[in-house]
Each structure stands twice: as C-alpha cells, then as structure tokens.
C-alpha cells in the first residue's frame, strides 16, 4: 500500500455482527490503489458492529468495524516467527494508525476469598481509604493475614490486575526467549534535549539505512509506556516519515491512551526496534531487552540535569559489533 493513499473502497465483510473471530481471521476486504487487500483480525474477539457498507469509499483512519476483545495484554505477540531478513510485511488494517475502538474487557465479579478478614492495621486503613473490600484481597502474610503488599497489589478493577498478570507473564516469556541471544551493548552520554517524538524519529532515520536489521519492510519503533495497567508498547511506524508536528501529536495522544489502558490494537504489532525511557525512574541505564524478532533495542537513561545516557543493544547474530557502534554514533550525532 502506498504512503500517499488516502481512501480505500470497502469491498465486502467476511464476518457478521456477533461472530467470534480469532486473531488472523479475515474481517473484510479493501480495494487499495494496488491490490485488493484482506484485513485480518488483530486479536481474538467478537464482532460488535459494522460501521461502513460494502461499496463505501472509506478514508484512511476511519473505523470500518468494531470488535470487542478479551485480550488483556497491551504488549507484543511473541508467537510470530518472522526472521529479521527478507520477511514480507502484512498490514493488518487499512491505515497505519486506524484507531479501532478500544476493547471492553470482560470484568469478572470480585471473588470473595476470605470469609473472615485478618489484616495488618495499616492495610485496613489503606483499604478503607481506597474502597477495597478486604474480603476480596488475597492474603499472603503469616497466618493468612493480609499485608500491605497484598493490599497494594489489589486493584479496584480486577480486570486491571488480570491484565497486569497477563502482561507479566508475556514479558517473562519474552525474556526467556531472548536469553539465548548473543547480545552486545553500547553506551553514550548525550548532552541534548529531546522528547520522545524527536528521539524515535531520529532513531527511525538511522535504521532507515539498515533494512536488513528489521523483520518488516517498514521501520516500527515500539515505545514503552508505563501505566497502572502495566507496560504498553505501542508501535510507531516509520516515524521519520511524518512531520515532526504530526508525530509529536501522535506520540502525545498514544501516551495518553496508553495511560488509560486504551492503546489502539493496530499499534500493537510491527515493531522492528524498541525504545525504553528510564529517565522517569531516575535510572541511568539498563541492558535493554531485545524482544524476539527485533535486532536492536535502545534505552534513554538519566545521567544529570543536562545529560542523558543512551544505550543500544544489538543482536550479534544479525548486526555485527562494529555496525552497532556506528548505529549508536549516528543516533547520538542526530540528537
């Protein structure tokens, strides 16, 4: 699909309202200026509404279909087994950032775990302040007593806790998968001011010259955004090719959405690199995690009021040591 395409014609739907779909099922076909394209479901779920008609000419970015998904996780699907070289990109939706209506998680009714409650005094105070019913909090302290840790882990919305747990499990799986990768890390101190948009645009520009370091034909920069729901990793596709104003607005909107637990599902795939910003934790560096199917990963760390530390980790199977150093140099030079 070309980057200049602004509309597409909806050909037909392959699903009806109420259908259960699995991730990958074809939802509808769109006629683009090059081919007829099948659009696949990005996650398991159920079709809630069809909001366009076959034959309509739909603008890029406008919703065509609404589906509800139970996917609690706003992180990568580590199931794909693309290799970083010469994979064919599959675009799941007719626009780079079509906001599919945010999922409505299935909220389970709170389960009464404790008939009688034993809790440390401060936990009772905290629960009272936050409107938490201690009967629903799992007690891990001695003698089945609810501790502060238990209360702090308990959320008003059990769906949030469920999502966090799923997130943790997925990231743990990711970590396991990356353990065997030969990695190298490089660090540079940077005396510059930049925001997320500028940074990911600069990095994408560097990577633009290295299509061999990506599993897709675009450059997809995943940016880790922390919220009370867990870690979200929205992917910004080809951020160096938008205007900086547009990109800044998109980053801001996506960050807001992520903090409210609503990352557009379309933005949850297609990453070729990941950026972690550790400065809000006052951390200076970490060895960035390489996610499966990514060759590079970058962290931004806090060094002082005027300098930051940028660390790059590369997968040595696909990028040699010298190239890695050059990549970081190029990034730092462009900041």
């Amino acid at each position, binding site marked *: 699909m070309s980057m200049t395409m602004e509309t597409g014609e909806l050909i037909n739907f392959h699903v009806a309202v109420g259908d259960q779909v699995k991730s990958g099922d074809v939802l509808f076909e769109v006629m683009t200026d090059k081919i007829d394209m099948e659009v696949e479901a990005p996650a398991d779920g159920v079709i809630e509404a069809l909001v366009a008609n076959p034959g309509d000419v739909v603008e890029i970015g406008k919703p065509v279909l609404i589906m509800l998904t139970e996917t609690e996780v706003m992180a990568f699907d580590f199931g794909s087994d693309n290799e970083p070289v010469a994979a064919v990109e599959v675009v799941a939706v007719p626009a780079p950032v079509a906001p599919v209506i945010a999922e409505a998680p299935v909220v389970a009714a709170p389960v009464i775990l404790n008939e009688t409650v034993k809790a*440390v*005094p*401060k*936990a*009772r*105070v905290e629960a009272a302040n936050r409107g938490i019913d201690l009967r629903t909090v799992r007690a891990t*302290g*001695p003698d089945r007593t609810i*501790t*502060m*840790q238990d209360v702090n882990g308990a959320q008003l919305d059990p769906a949030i806790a469920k999502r966090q747990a799923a997130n943790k499990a997925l990231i743990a799986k990711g970590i396991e998968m990356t353990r065997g990768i030969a990695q190298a890390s490089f660090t540079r101190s940077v005396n510059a001011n930049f925001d997320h948009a500028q940074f990911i645009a600069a990095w994408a520009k560097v990577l633009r010259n290295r299509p061999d370091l990506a599993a897709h034909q675009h450059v997809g920069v995943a940016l880790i955004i922390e919220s009370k729901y867990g870690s979200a990793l929205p992917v910004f596709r080809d951020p160096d090719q938008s205007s900086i104003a547009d990109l800044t607005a998109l980053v801001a909107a996506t960050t807001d959405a992520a903090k409210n637990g609503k990352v557009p599902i379309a933005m949850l795939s297609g990453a070729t690199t990941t950026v972690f910003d550790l400065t809000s934790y006052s951390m200076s560096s970490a060895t960035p995690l390489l996610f499966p199917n990514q060759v590079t990963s970058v962290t931004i760390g806090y060094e002082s009021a005027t300098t930051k530390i940028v660390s790059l980790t590369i997968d040595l199977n696909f990028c040699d040591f010298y190239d890695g150093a050059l990549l970081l140099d190029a990034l730092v030079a462009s900041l």
Partner: protein
Amino acid sequence: MSDRMLTMAEAVREAMSIAFDERPEVFLLGEDVGIYGGAFGVSGDMYHRYGAERVLDTPIAELGIVGAAVGAALSGMRPIVEIQFSDFTAQAMDQIANQAAKIHFMLGGALHVPMVLRTPQGSGTGAAAQHSQNLEPWFASVPGLKVVVPSNPADAKGLLLAAIDDPNPVIFLEHKLLYKIPGRDPVPEGSTRIPLGVSKVVREGKDLTIVATGIMVNKSWEVAEKLAAEGISITLIDPRTISPLDMNPVFESVEKTGRLLVVQEGPAQAGFINEVIAQLAGSSSFGSLIAPIKRLAGMNIPIPYAPQLEKAAVPQLDDIEAAAREIVNNWR
C-alpha cells in the same frame, strides 16, 4: 583510646563526685561503698577523697539503710543509697514503695524525699537466681518513684546528675556487665545534666523500630549495625527513663517504619516493656503498623546458675537478629 572513654563505673563515680562538690548535702551510703570502694568498684577512692562523713559504710541491713536515707532526705540531705544487688531491694521495699514514694503525697506536698537509690541489676555474671534479676517493672509500677535505666557511661553520668537534682525519689538501675567497659561514645567533661523523662533515638532507620532498655540497647545496636550492611535499616530508641516514659519518638518512628520490636532483659510476663506495647496499641500510630508487634524478653524462670542456661534465659544477639529479620522479611 581517648581518656574520656570511661567505663560505666568511672562515669557514675565522676557524677557522684561532681554532685558532692556542688552540694554539701549530697552523701553516699551503702554496704562496702567506703573503705572497700564498692562491691563493683563504683565508689572507688571516694572514701579517701571525701571522708567517712560523706561516704558511709553501713551494716548489712537494707531496710535500715533505705530507712536512714529516707529520714536523711526528709531532713534536708540528698542521700545516694547504693544497694549492692537490686535483688536485695526486696528487703527494703517498705521504705522504697510505702515511705519514699508516698510521703510527699501523704503530707500534701509539705516535704520532699530527694533520694537516689542506685543498684546493679541484670544477669550474665554467673551470680545465679538471687543476684541477677531485672526488676524494672517492680519500681516502674509504683507511682511516686522515677526509674532510670542508663545503657552507656555517657548517659549514666548526665542522668545521675539529673537524678540527684530531682527533689523526689529516683531509682537508678545500673547493669553489672556494663560497669567495667566503656561505651561507644566518650563521656562528656563537665556537669551537663541529661533530663529525666526524655527518650533517645540512638539511630534512625526506615524498616523497623526497636525499643530496648539497659543492656538490650547495646545488643540491639550491634544487630542494627550488622543488618544495615544488608540493607535493613533500623531505628533504635532507648527510653533511658522508664518512668515517666517518653513515648513520642516511638510514635513518630512507628509511623515511618510500621514495624515495632521491643526488647528487655526481664521476663516477658508483666515486664516493663509491655508498657511500650500498650501505649502504642492504644495510640493513633497503631494504624501505621504493617506487622504485629514483636516482643523479646527473658524466659519466665529464675536466672539459672549454669552459664549456658543463664545465657539462654535472656535475649541474645542471635535472638534479636532473628526477630528483626523475621519481621522485616515476612511483613511487607
């Protein structure tokens, strides 16, 4: 070692000497305090420096000794009574609890009893059941008595001077094991008083509050040092005066740490340290607790004679360390 690293015995002797010099009405009486220099060497050479009129050797008659002191105090003197082992105060209890503590009240405030009763307490010297008790709760439970328990020489000097100044009876409980060793800090020169009824925060931490009396302060300090190296930071509070008890630092600290461990040498049952727990449990700081309050104290037995059993009968370093770790690790 600096020459101000005095032992507890030297610090107490120095305080008494300063008081003797400041006021002619201060004098010392007790068994073996004069010519012998004190059973534990506390009075030392004071008999030779101040003479028989100020340092009185008495017969073995605790009730009479304390009775004489009460009478002297009522007549305008400021006696320091040394009872050789705190266990022997039982012999003198009528004069301590029924006379000294109450006369001021029963005479409508007309007279005071400005008496200090100093006595060594505690176990660890192999002196067995009748010479090793910790009787803090006996005295702390009598209204009209003040009770001071110094944990180190520097505090002992300032507290004793304040106790001698006090117009009412003060029980000053020294620990036998501390007499011959210096503390962590040098003893200040001069005659600065440490006010009675003021607790001391010996060290600050954020994970656990320990309140301890007497020799348990020092043991707790060692444990706190060791655990600090492992990232467990402990606030240690020494009440110094157990009656009247200053709980304010304890409330403040528990609100920060959320965990409280109290350590005393005497038996747990009806021990003094329970006062700390009772006040905390009834206070608004109770809501800050994230762990049950833990109490370490002596076993409910007379102090044994056999050395291993004597040690096992009271909290030791290992016990304090284990308790601290358990509270911090199990209650998050």
